[in-house]
C-alpha cells in the first residue's frame, strides 16, 4: 500500500506541537493536491460564468463544468449526464427533492430508518410528511421484514451508510421491495460515495444525494442524481439558467439537468468533484475499498479488545465511521483530551438524535476513516484512549 497521506498537504500539519491524526472524515475529508490545484487553476486561468457565454473563458469554464457532470455520471453509473445535477450539498439535494415532491408527500408518509442524519429527517417534516422508520435490531441491522409499507408511503429515503455507526444498509433489498410497491427510493450516499463503488443501474434508486466535501472535493457543492423517470417534476428553485421563456405571468423551464440548476452554480466546486473522482479512480475504487476495509476492521477490532470501551452497531458490512464511548467517561471529555494529543475525532449526537435515543446515549465519540488513514492512526487512537482512561482512573 502506497502512502496516500503525501497527497494531502494538510496531513503534514502539527497541532499543539504534535503530529495531526485526522479521524473526523465523516464530518469532512481533506483535499488532495490534485483537487487543490484544480480549484486554483480554475480561478487563475479559466474562471468565468458558464452557459450562454460567447467568449473564450466562458466556453472553457462551461466545458470543464460539463465534463465534471459527465465524470459524475460515469462514476455512479447513471444512465446519462442529464440525470446529474450539481447542488450545494447532500442537505440541499434532499431538500430539493422534498420541495419538488411536496405535493405528493404532504399529509402522506416517508419511510426512513432509525440511523438517519437530520438532513434526511427534517426536509420531509418541512414538506409536511409524517415519518416512519424501518425497525432495527440492537446491532442496528434493518429488519426489512418488519417494514410496514402503507398506502400513505410515498417515498423511501435511506442512508446507504450510517454517519455514526458505519453500518452499511442493504439498499438493493430496499429498492427491490420498493419496486414491488412502486414507491420511489432516495439514497443518501453522503457516507458511501467516498468508500464504496456505486452503480445506479444496479442499485435501482430514483434519487441519490451526496456532498463534494466528504469525497475529497470542495465545500459548498454536492450532487443530486434524479432518474430520468422523474425528469418532469417541478424544480425546487427558480432563477437564471433553468428557464426557457419567462413572462411575469408564466414561465417555462428547460429540460434537466439545467432545469434543476437555478442560478450560477458552484462552478469551481463541480469541477473539483471531477478532480476528486479522477483522484479516486487513479487509485481505483477496489483498491480504496480493500485498504479502507483493512484499516477499519483493524481499528474496530482493537477498540473491541480495549477494556472499558463500548462500540455501537454491528452489521455485516461496515465502513467509514466507528462510534464508541469509554465507560463512565463523557464523550466530550474523551474528545477534548484526544484533541490535545493531536487526534481529531468528533463527539456528540452527530446530527442523529433519534439514533442516539435508540442507543441509549446522549452522544458518542466517533472516529471516521478515509483512504489516507492507516493502521498507525488506529494505533494512535487506541493509545490515546488508554491515556484518557488512565487520567480518569
Amino acid at each position, binding site marked *: 500500500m502506497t502512502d496516500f497521506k503525501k497527497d494531502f498537504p494538510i496531513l503534514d500539519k502539527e497541532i499543539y506541537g504534535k503530529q495531526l491524526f485526522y479521524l473526523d472524515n465523516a464530518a469532512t475529508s481533506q483535499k488532495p493536491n490534485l483537487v487543490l490545484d484544480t480549484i486554483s487553476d480554475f480561478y487563475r486561468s479559466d474562471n468565468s460564468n*458558464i*452557459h*450562454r*457565454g*460567447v467568449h473564450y473563458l466562458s*466556453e472553457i469554464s*462551461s*466545458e470543464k*463544468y*460539463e465534463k465534471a457532470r459527465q465524470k459524475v455520471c460515469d462514476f455512479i453509473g447513471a444512465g446519462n449526464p442529464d440525470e446529474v445535477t450539481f447542488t450545494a450539498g447532500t442537505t440541499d439535494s434532499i431538500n430539493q427533492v422534498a420541495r419538488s415532491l411536496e405535493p405528493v408527500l404532504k399529509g402522506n408518509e416517508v419511510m426512513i430508518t432509525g440511523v438517519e442524519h437530520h438532513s434526511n429527517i427534517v426536509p420531509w417534516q418541512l414538506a409536511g410528511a409524517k415519518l416512519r422508520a424501518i425497525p432495527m435490531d440492537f446491532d442496528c441491522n434493518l429488519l426489512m421484514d418488519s417494514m410496514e409499507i402503507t398506502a400513505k408511503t410515498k417515498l423511501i429515503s435511506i442512508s446507504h451508510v450510517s454517519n455514526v455507526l458505519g453500518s452499511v444498509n442493504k439498499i438493493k433489498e430496499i429498492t427491490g421491495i420498493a419496486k414491488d410497491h412502486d414507491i420511489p427510493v432516495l439514497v443518501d450516499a453522503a457516507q458511501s460515495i467516498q468508500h464504496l463503488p456505486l452503480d445506479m443501474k444496479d442499485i435501482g434508486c430514483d434519487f441519490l444525494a451526496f456532498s463534494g466535501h466528504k469525497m475529497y472535493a470542495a465545500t459548498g457543492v454536492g450532487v443530486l442524481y434524479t432518474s430520468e423517470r422523474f425528469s418532469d417534476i417541478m424544480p425546487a428553485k427558480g432563477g437564471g439558467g433553468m428557464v*426557457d421563456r419567462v413572462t411575469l405571468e408564466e414561465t417555462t423551464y428547460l429540460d434537466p439537468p439545467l432545469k434543476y440548476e437555478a442560478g450560477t452554480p458552484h462552478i469551481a466546486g463541480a469541477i473539483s468533484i471531477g478532480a476528486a473522482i479522477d483522484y479516486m479512480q487513479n487509485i481505483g475504487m477496489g483498491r480504496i475499498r480493500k485498504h479502507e476495509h483493512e484499516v477499519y476492521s483493524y481499528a474496530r477490532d482493537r477498540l473491541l479488545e480495549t477494556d472499558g470501551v463500548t462500540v455501537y452497531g454491528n452489521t455485516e458490512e461496515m465502513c467509514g465511521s466507528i462510534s464508541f464511548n469509554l465507560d463512565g467517561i463523557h464523550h466530550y471529555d474523551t474528545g477534548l483530551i484526544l484533541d490535545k494529543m493531536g487526534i481529531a475525532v468528533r463527539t456528540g449526537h452527530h446530527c442523529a438524535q433519534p439514533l442516539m435515543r435508540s442507543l441509549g446515549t446522549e452522544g458518542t465519540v466517533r472516529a471516521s476513516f478515509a483512504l489516507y488513514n492507516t493502521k498507525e492512526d488506529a494505533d494512535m487512537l487506541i493509545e490515546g484512549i488508554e491515556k484518557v482512561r488512565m487520567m480518569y482512573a
Partner: protein
Amino acid sequence: MRDAVQDEIIAQFDGLEWLDKYGLLISYAKELEPMDERFRNEENSISGCQSKVWIRTYKEDSRLIIDLDSDAMITRGIISLLLKVVNNRPPQEVLDLDLYFIDEIGLKSNLSPARADGLASIIRRIREVAEREVN
C-alpha cells in the same frame, strides 16, 4: 473518409486569422438564400441557440433537402457551409457523413455542448430527420 466539398472549405479557411475567417463566414452568409419569412416561425425553430435558427426539410427524388436560416450572420455563414456539405444527399449519406471540416476550420468550439450557439443542436436535428427518412 475525405470529402471534396469539405476539403475545399478547409483549404479556403486554411491559414486565415480569426477575423478573416469570420469575414469569410459573413460573405458565405450573404450567399445563402434567405428562408421565406412565413417559415421562420416558432414551429420550425431550433432551440438552444443564442441566435434564432429555423429549419425546414423535405425529400426530393430520395434526396434530403434542407433549408436553414438564422438571424445572426455568423450562424448563417456556418449554416451556409454546412448546407454545402449535407444538403441534397440521400439520407443514409447524411448519416454516414463525418463533418470533419468543422473541427479543421476551427469552429469546433461552436459544436461543444457548452456553447449555447447550437451548431451541435442543428447537426443533431439534421441527423434526426435523416434517420427518420432512412427508416
